[in-house]
């Protein structure tokens, strides 16, 4: 039995496929990143760490790391927390939950390309519905709420909304302006991601035994917050780990919205890694630098996965 070679036949197809389409290209990319090879060249030279040196010293690539980091750090926590809140709200609804589920889940199902184009129209500086909505609200309730005039320390003449109204409806150009572009893209990223997280959390919530809540109630956990701390949050640990991992990997991979809405601009503020790889390696045919970015990208993902696998996983499974 032990000497049988049959098992090789069973695992060989998967192993061969994995080597051909996953592991070999990975090592190839790793190799290319140490050369000056461009697609189509007949020869190449080893250049050592030059590509990596560029990446960490040239402004473009530093901006790339910043844009990616900002996007991930903003989108992951917000979409996870929003997903959890939405799931808990829906879970407490007696009826109508299905409608909300559908609405929140639509962005996940819809074609990203079409959605991105719709967002482009919505956020258009002059024709877009967002800015016309803001312009029509000057001096009204919208200005009071969105201009944060209700906060005691905001001067109603100096708020961003009041200033824009005063300057001939000078509202942000959202995707075309250095200081708003990345946040706008983040907003769209959250809008896309949180529906999926909500569905995962809904599944997690239904698997919490009701008796635990009743035990908590008998033990004297009176407020919803106490019950959340004592039962909901710890019991959702494995779900949260999964949701955070999935969302992080997906946000690292953001590409479609960037390609359609900003092309990495303005002045590289939304130049995320996936887009950089595409631009360098495909559009500009700088294969070697594209490979170097890819290696760094894979490095990030690997570190993250190992951290979640070996550090956090031990704390969420009981």
């Amino acid at each position: 039995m032990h000497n049988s070679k049959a098992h090789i036949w069973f695992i060989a197809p998967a192993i061969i496929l994995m080597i051909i389409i996953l592991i070999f290209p990975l090592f190839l990319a790793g190799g290319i990143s140490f050369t000056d090879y461009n697609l189509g060249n007949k020869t190449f030279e080893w250049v050592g760490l030059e590509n990596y040196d560029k990446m960490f010293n040239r402004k473009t690539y530093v901006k790339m790391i910043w844009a990616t980091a900002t996007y991930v750090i903003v989108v992951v926590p917000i979409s996870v927390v929003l997903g959890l809140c939405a799931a808990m709200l829906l879970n407490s609804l007696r009826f109508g939950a299905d409608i909300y589920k559908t609405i929140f889940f639509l962005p996940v199902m819809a074609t990203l390309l079409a959605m991105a184009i719709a967002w482009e129209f919505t956020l258009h500086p002059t024709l877009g519905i967002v800015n016309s909505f803001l312009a029509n609200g000057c001096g009204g309730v919208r200005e009071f709420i969105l201009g944060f005039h209700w906060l005691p320390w905001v001067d109603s003449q100096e708020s961003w909304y009041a200033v824009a109204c005063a300057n001939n409806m000078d509202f942000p150009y959202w995707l075309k302006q250095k200081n708003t572009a990345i946040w706008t893209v983040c907003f769209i990223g959250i809008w896309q991601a949180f529906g999926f997280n909500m569905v995962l959390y809904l599944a997690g919530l239904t698997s919490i035994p009701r008796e635990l809540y009743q035990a908590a109630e008998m033990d004297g956990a009176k407020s919803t917050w106490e019950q959340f701390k004592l039962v909901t949050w710890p019991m959702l640990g494995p779900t949260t780990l999964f949701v955070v991992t999935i969302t992080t990997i997906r946000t690292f991979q953001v590409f479609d919205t960037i390609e359609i809405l900003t092309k990495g601009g303005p002045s590289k503020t939304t130049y995320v890694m996936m887009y950089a790889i595409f631009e360098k390696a495909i559009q500009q045919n700088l294969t070697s630098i594209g490979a170097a970015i890819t290696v760094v990208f894979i490095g990030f993902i690997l570190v993250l996965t190992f951290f979640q696998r070996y550090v956090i996983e031990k704390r969420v499974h009981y």
Partner: protein
Amino acid sequence: MGTISLKNISKSFGSTQVLNNLNVDINDGEFLTLVGPSGCGKSTLLRIIAGLEQQTSGDVLIDNKNVNRVRASERDLAMVFQSYALYPHLTVRRNLETPLRLRDYNAFERLPLIGNFSPSKKEKTESINQLVNKTSETLKISELLDRKPGQLSGGQRQRVALGRAMVREPVAFLMDEPLSNLDAALRVHMRSELSELHNSLKTTFVYVTHDQAEALTMSSRMAVMIDGNLLQLDTPQEVYDNPSSLSVAQFVGSPKINIFKGTSDSSGTVSFLNVNLKRKSSESNTDLHIGIRPEHLEITNESNENTFSGTVAYRENLGSDIFFHVNIEDGSNKIIVRGLPQFTHQISNGSSVNIKRVSDKALLFNQVGMRVQFTNA
């Protein structure tokens, strides 16, 4: 003090009535068992006492205070759940501490890190530790305090669940079939432990079970519920000897009581099969159900007007007793007779036997299942 009174409690889910105008008074320090077949509403009643479920009508009084509008966490009761419902992410120690922490610490002291700056917290923490240690010693779970529930066996989890209920000295303990997830041997063992615990704590226990043996062995009084009605509330001995109705007689006792079809003549004298009970029923000239428990029948060699005969269909040897499942000759009935092994070991399946009743032990029920008394004459 720990008295609980239920006054005219009714509960319906939609159009299904699950509890039907129940009245129960539970005395301080009593071990009261709510017993009945599955779906009789006993768990619902317990949850109404706990405050986890709201009754449709009626009042719940704890220590003579109406608690209809008091939520579960403020009724000062402790509950042991069938599934134990331990917090799986917390160690046993933290599980035991939880009810104390939630009640003794104020909101500020429960905050992580900065809560430790509260001057009174240290003292409270010490008293909590003492209580947890004391409880864990009583239940012999001291060596388990640093483990998590997932690493415990069923019996150990059961003890931890008990400990979590005991640790804060509540007005009463509510237990929802706490032994049903244990194996048979441990269940029997835990019965005696629970009784001892009740004796030493002297707190009111309200215990729900579908197992009539648990009810008979542990309780000071048992309430038999069937189909949302409270049929009888009395001491176990009284319920066993003097069931108020046919359903109670059939539910309590294992093996089940034997029911014969009988009649009373115009003078009230009761007879069944060929046997005359030579006693008079208070209802004359009617059909009756006559209940005789298996231990009140015996297998005999005699054959006279006090015996009837049948064929052994199945012989159930329990070691200390042998129960014979006997088909009676007229084919109307299958009955169970207890035999002592030293006298009956030679009787095998298929043999025909004569059966004699022990006099004065028959119970009479009328056509609708209500108890009928013998007249003394």
